[in-house]
């Protein structure tokens, strides 16, 4: 992994069109500003991780769901 040291208000570029700015630094938190083209989706990593975990939980659903149809008729 590439590790860069930056100060407040300094920036890094990823490719030609993704610009990341260090907006603010506090002891336990930093604020990042991200400028990227529309087709680049930016997410907190937790979102990906949470969806992965949810998928894994879904993959161990009950083997038989036939009885559940009735729940929708109420």
């Amino acid at each position, binding site marked *: 992994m590439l590790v860069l040291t930056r100060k407040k208000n300094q920036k890094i570029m990823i490719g030609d069109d993704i610009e990341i700015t260090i907006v603010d630094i506090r002891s336990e938190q930093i604020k990042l500003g991200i400028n990227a083209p*529309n*087709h*680049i*989706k930016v*997410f907190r990593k937790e*979102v*990906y991780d*949470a*969806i*992965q*975990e*949810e*998928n*894994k*939980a*879904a*993959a161990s*659903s*009950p*083997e*038989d*769901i*036939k009885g*559940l*149809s009735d*729940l*929708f008729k*109420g």
Partner: protein
Amino acid sequence: MNINTSRFGELEVPAEDIITFPLGILGFDKTSRYVILNDPATEPLRWLQSVDNKDLAFVIIDPLRFRSEYTLDLSDEDVLDLKLSAPEEAILYAIVVIPKDNPEKMTANLQGPIVINANLMRAKQVISTNSSHKLKHFILEEMKAMLATTQKRLGKLGVKLNRRESTTKSTDEEAR
């Protein structure tokens, strides 16, 4: 083609029914081919069964069954990945988690829905940027709330739901 499944035994599936997820499903990146099993006995729940891994299957649901206003904004990247040329080509599903000891508390994931290009049978699990789309939506509770709202609206219009049901029945009989 024949596919081998642990839940349903061996199934014969027409090749054109096979859906390809080029990027896989998050957490299952290496499995790309699936088929949707429509069984009236499980409706509105359906199975998304892996073609290549007999043990892997997800329960899915059409989000409109419990949320009448569910719409999804796709990013340019999603549209490209899905090779979508018109919104009408897209079919939406949400993956369902069913707690084994308490199936009434089943939840649907609207934050990471599945979009299928029905023409190309190409699919992707996308990530919704709409903050009202959560990881866990309690399907049965939201469905009840949705039906209550519909009933209220119909009530205002002077329509009774039981009358509508009997109309549907007679139409069915005519169709027979």
